[in-house]
């Protein structure tokens, strides 16, 4: 089940950057950790979140109604670096990685193409189309749109651009990064990992990034990384 939540939080909205996330705190005593959820849209004093119900915490959130309150953190993570000079930008999203692309689409000038992969049922397609984005859909089953994954769809449709942005499962990001390297196009990926604190203290979430050193890599905290690779 996919849910949408709009939170009135002026302090969060005023400092949020596209591609950042917030930590949402469930009330249930059976939970301890906050749930990191990407910001889908940034309003004047609100943020919109679109999330999947995958467990205890998100189930609790899905039962909230208008007028309820929720504990939410300040914006976390580094967000995307919007490339204003790109004439054609391609946004690639996989499943629950699609929501953050909405705010990103609002901020990108020029021509925008989105390639969205879903297992079965697409969502947020109309929202993106209303922002002037040309949307391609790829589903595993072929029930809607292209049958296959987003990379196959990009190749089949001959989609290209000056800059790619992406959010979704690691396997998709890895394949997209390899594809972008093969066509010499820069890409920013939004990564996620199981997190603890969400702000860089607990070292629970790390990722190896290439580096010019003996080992050939550095280990960086997801929440602190510069998104552009």
């Amino acid at each position: 089940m996919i849910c949408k939540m709009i939170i009135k939080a002026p302090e969060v909205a005023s400092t949020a950057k596209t591609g950042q996330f917030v930590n949402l705190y469930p009330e249930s005593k059976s939970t301890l950790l906050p749930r990191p959820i990407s910001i889908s849209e940034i309003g004047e004093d609100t943020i919109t979140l679109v999330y999947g119900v995958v467990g205890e915490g998100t189930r609790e959130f899905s039962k909230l109604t208008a007028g309820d309150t929720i504990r939410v953190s300040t914006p976390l993570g580094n967000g995307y670096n919007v490339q204003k000079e790109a004439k054609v930008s391609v946004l690639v999203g996989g499943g629950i990685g699609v929501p953050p692309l909405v705010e990103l689409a609002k901020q990108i000038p020029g021509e925008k193409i989105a390639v969205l992969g879903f297992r079965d049922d697409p969502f947020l397609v109309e929202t993106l189309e209303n922002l002037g984005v040309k949307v391609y859909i790829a589903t595993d089953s072929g029930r809607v749109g292209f049958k296959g994954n987003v990379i196959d769809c990009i190749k089949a449709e001959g989609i290209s651009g000056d800059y790619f942005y992406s959010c979704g499962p690691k396997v998709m990001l890895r394949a997209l990064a390899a594809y972008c390297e093969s066509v010499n196009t820069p890409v920013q990926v939004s990564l996620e990992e199981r997190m603890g604190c969400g702000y860089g203290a607990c070292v629970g979430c790390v990722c190896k990034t290439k580096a010019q050193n003996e080992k050939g890599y550095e280990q960086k905290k997801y929440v602190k990384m510069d998104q552009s690779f």
Partner: protein
Amino acid sequence: MNNANIDKAAAAKGIDLSVNIAGVTLKNPITTASGTFSPHESSEFYDLSELGAMITKGVASTPWDGNPVPRIAETYGGMINAVGLQNPGVDYYIENELPFARKFDTKIIANVAGHSLQEYCDVVERLNETDVDMLEVNISCPNVKEGGIGFGTNPDMAATVTREVKKLTNKPIIIKLTPNVTDITSIAKAVEAEGAAAVSLINTLLGMKIDVHRKRQ
């Protein structure tokens, strides 16, 4: 930064919050546990001068990557972790992290990690040259596959580490104990006998969470 709020409020009411551990006076008994706290990140949220002491994350003689992700899992009302002591190594710590921590009016207790007796000694020797106020030796992290488990679960090995690091510094030594033993008092007594100024309790409890529905850990 000085004149932290907690102490001001206490002083105004004539309450003395200070504590003395092994000759080091902490202005109040609030410290951060090693592994749960990072001065850089936490300083964005509150004034670290409020703390009686900060116990920094375990540092080894060379940088350690720690365990592969995922490293944490929520359990019912809690969490388990296996970070694996990722740290940038003692050289980086001394050059970068200590100077930052010293900006705050609080005591610094440096946690020491090691895969072997020699590594513990190497770190203690380096830290002895700095102005950290105390050392906390982590002989008990259960996530390190070599050495760590052995030392903390065996009174003789725990005593050996204590004795050997004591030779290298006059700074007070706190030994951090593991709960994953049958009798923690025997370990505590063994390190006390070798001159540990204090023990800190406890390091991570071993645990595993199994999802019976997904048939996975």
